[in-house]
């Protein structure tokens, strides 16, 4: 089963690299959304520094959502999902593998771009560490929760809008603790409690999301 999971992750990462532009779309959106704020609220460093954490997190969350709709859709449309379901791996493992590939190809570039954007938004350099750590712990939860949504809307028309309505409310806890971690480090408070909460959310998502996504995929196949 591990070989099957590895094969799926390897294929999806390779596909993302071949479709270079499609994969870059999320990170380009992330950069543009963040760069718009200095134009919108003015270039005053204090104002920007105060909203930087929230802006970065909301933009990252929306960027992750952009690419989620295609997570299972392409495999569903070309019949690959049928054949994946006919392999040795249970559907929950298939969902987990595809979600892992989504995180690798979407969230990792976002995390890499975040410090540069933090610089533009005048986030104090002391908070960069907290930002990156919070993103590393928070974005897998975004991919996992989004994976359940993507599996649920599979085969429906206007799936993208439905997916946003379904998933965005569930992103709120990750958003709260992600922003709080950066905020705490900005005013010199302990960052750890917020990071632990993000880690706890991730553990819950890791246990529940693949199973729920697998059940939703079974529904879509029948």
């Amino acid at each position, binding site marked *: 089963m591990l*070989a*099957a999971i590895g*094969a*799926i992750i*390897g*294929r999806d990462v*390779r*596909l993302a690299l*071949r*479709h270079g532009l499609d994969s870059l779309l999320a990170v380009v959106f992330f950069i543009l959304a963040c760069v718009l704020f200095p134009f919108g609220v003015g270039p005053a460093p204090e104002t920007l520094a105060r909203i930087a954490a929230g802006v970065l997190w909301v933009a990252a969350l929306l960027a992750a959502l952009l690419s989620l709709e295609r997570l299972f859709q392409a495999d569903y*449309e*070309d*019949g*690959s999902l*049928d*054949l*994946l*379901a*006919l*392999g*040795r791996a*249970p559907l929950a493992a298939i969902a987990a593998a595809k979600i892992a590939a989504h995180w690798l190809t979407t969230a990792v570039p976002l995390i890499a771009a975040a410090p540069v954007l933090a610089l533009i938004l005048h986030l104090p350099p002391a908070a960069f560490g907290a930002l990156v750590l919070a993103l590393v712990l928070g974005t897998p939860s975004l991919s996992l929760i989004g994976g359940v949504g993507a599996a649920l809307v599979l085969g429906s028309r206007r799936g993208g809008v439905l997916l946003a309505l379904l998933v965005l409310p569930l992103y709120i806890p990750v958003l709260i603790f992600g922003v709080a971690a950066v905020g705490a480090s900005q005013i010199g408070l302990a960052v750890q409690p917020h990071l632990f909460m993000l880690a706890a959310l991730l553990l819950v998502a890791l246990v529940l999301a693949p199973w729920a996504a697998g059940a939703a995929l079974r529904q879509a*196949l*029948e």
Partner: protein
Amino acid sequence: MTVSSLAALPGLQPEARAVFADAVFTGAGLACERGGRRVFHGLSFHVCAGEALVLVGRNGSGKSSLLRLMAGLSRPAQGALTWNDGDIADDREAHHGRLHLIGHQDAIKPALTVRENLGFWARYRGGPGAPARIADALRAFALERLADLPARYLSQGQRRRLSLCRLLASPAQLWLLDEPRSGLDRAASESLDAVLARHRAAGGMAVVVLHGDDHPPAARVLDFDVSGTGARTDPC
């Protein structure tokens, strides 16, 4: 299909092929519903090792639905499918491991090369000797010269041949083929006949949806258009 044309087909050396155990795949009293409408009912079939079952019938009579039931992708509204007296729903993963399904959709990723597409499914399904099997499969359907071409440049018939290559890239006893000849030229169609004959000689089974009269030799036929209690085949 003559013996000489079988031998002329490279990549199908008998010693390289798995020989499958004796088995029987049956369905009894099957009913299928799609979207609340009853597609067929009272359908029964038997397939034994080395046999081919041909499904014929008008459009929409449920041939493709039956293939999905046989694959365990959906459940019958009534009746049961058994493999050697064990219900396939009891151990879905074991059943999946012994079958290949070639449906209408070809599951080909345009951005990957022919070899990468096939290699992924071989790796995903597992089984011994994957590189050699992939090379054999590409040779059997005359795709070895296109092996490093991105699949987006393939014609319809070439995509079909690439789908059929999956049959040989990893071993499975039960082949479920939905109109495998659609889009194939004569040479490819003959390759398919040869591959099917070799599969059956090794104890494999095939269930094939066909529209023409070009049936494999000595195949059982399950006709979906018979009226009354439903289509059925004789027991083995």
